[in-house]
């Protein structure tokens, strides 16, 4: 199993939408 780790998630807003079964990425999330 591949794993997308936290080092590669940095500065993105990572959005868990469990109700709709979706995962989102938005750039510039921390600014």
């Amino acid at each position, binding site marked *: 199993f591949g794993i*997308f780790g936290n080092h590669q998630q940095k*500065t993105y807003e990572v*959005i868990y939408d469990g109700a709709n079964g979706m995962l989102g990425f938005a750039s510039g999330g921390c600014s």
Partner: protein
Amino acid sequence: VEANEHIKKHVLTLEVNSLLASDSCDQSMIDKASSLQVLHKYGPCMQVLNDRSHVDFLRQDQLRVDSIQARLSKNSSGHGIFEEMATKLPAQSGIALGTGNYVVTVGLGTPKESFTLEFDTGSGITWTQCQPCSGSCYPQKEQMFDPAKSTSYNNVSCFSASCNLLPASERGCSASNSTCLYRVVYGDQSYSQGFFASETLTISSSDVVTNFMFGCGQNNDGLFGQSAGLLGLSPSSESLPSQTAEKYQRQFSYCLPSSPSSTGYLNFGGKVSQTAGFTPLSPDFSFYYGIDIVGICVGGSQLPIDPSIFTTSGAIIDSGTVITRLPPTAYKALKEAFDGKMSNYPKTNGDELLDTCYDFSNYTTVSFPDVSVSFKGGVEVDIDPSGILYPVDGVKMVCLAFAANMDDSE
């Protein structure tokens, strides 16, 4: 000229020293009243002494990945591999598994007291160390939670539906008074056990969760930094997102800062960016959030990786694993493409985990190709420059921050 412009767009330049964490804490970035502030567990914002090296972090990361792989293998095969693997993993003093590297501070009890918890999308139960700590407890930053001082604390009965939120393997019942008990053991034998109880959880002044089921830990061991416990954000039924599904519709978001000396945030509910790209979550995993990687670009060029390499084993996203793990075939293509554009820099021996490393001692700035990962649904994530390289030993050993699994089917 056009070709040169194209190439330029896919080259990143960094000051070498920016790869290293600052000694001072910069909390200026985040000021959201309804957000939890995210800090690195060992960064300067935690204001605790840290003598642990990146080599330790990477060893801990591999133990966590071994544990995840074993649990997923058990999930898919049903042959109990996790238990077998768990006993084989070395018990390493001072290293905790299953816990994340980032912490948030939440309120617990009435009146509310603050506790710093590691947040982890790969863990289910939320727990904190509890007085009277009838077994043993490790030292923590804040005073330990005392249920006797809270008017909203209640133990859960074994016969209530709440007790069944826990997986059968983590659930127990007190023979003397039928109180629901929990016991969670991580892959390195570190653990927390105690009472499964309900309490008021305060995320922010506008986000208060009553009757939140959590673990009141009476016996806890392992190195959890100086945090007070763990905030479980996995998809499983005992996690915070599952328990608050009516309130937040299983929606939460976070941003992890580019440096351990900066802050990020954790939000619950639908307060999310409108510009996000979305990929479907796989329903195949009950403990983890499954995603589908479909491709990787280096320096603007798509790597020649057969899509089946990614689909054979699948993938998850995890807030507690540091280094992204790829099928070996995909990793080989990535490292060869990346290394091919780094010929200007002296190579150096790698770490146990990271094998594509450079010595930047004689450079003030370095240039390297950008890396992007594509997910099902057309989402392309351009990895932040801070996420492409990892300083294992200062600037003497800076490595490509990706690693390979054992084989493509893992």
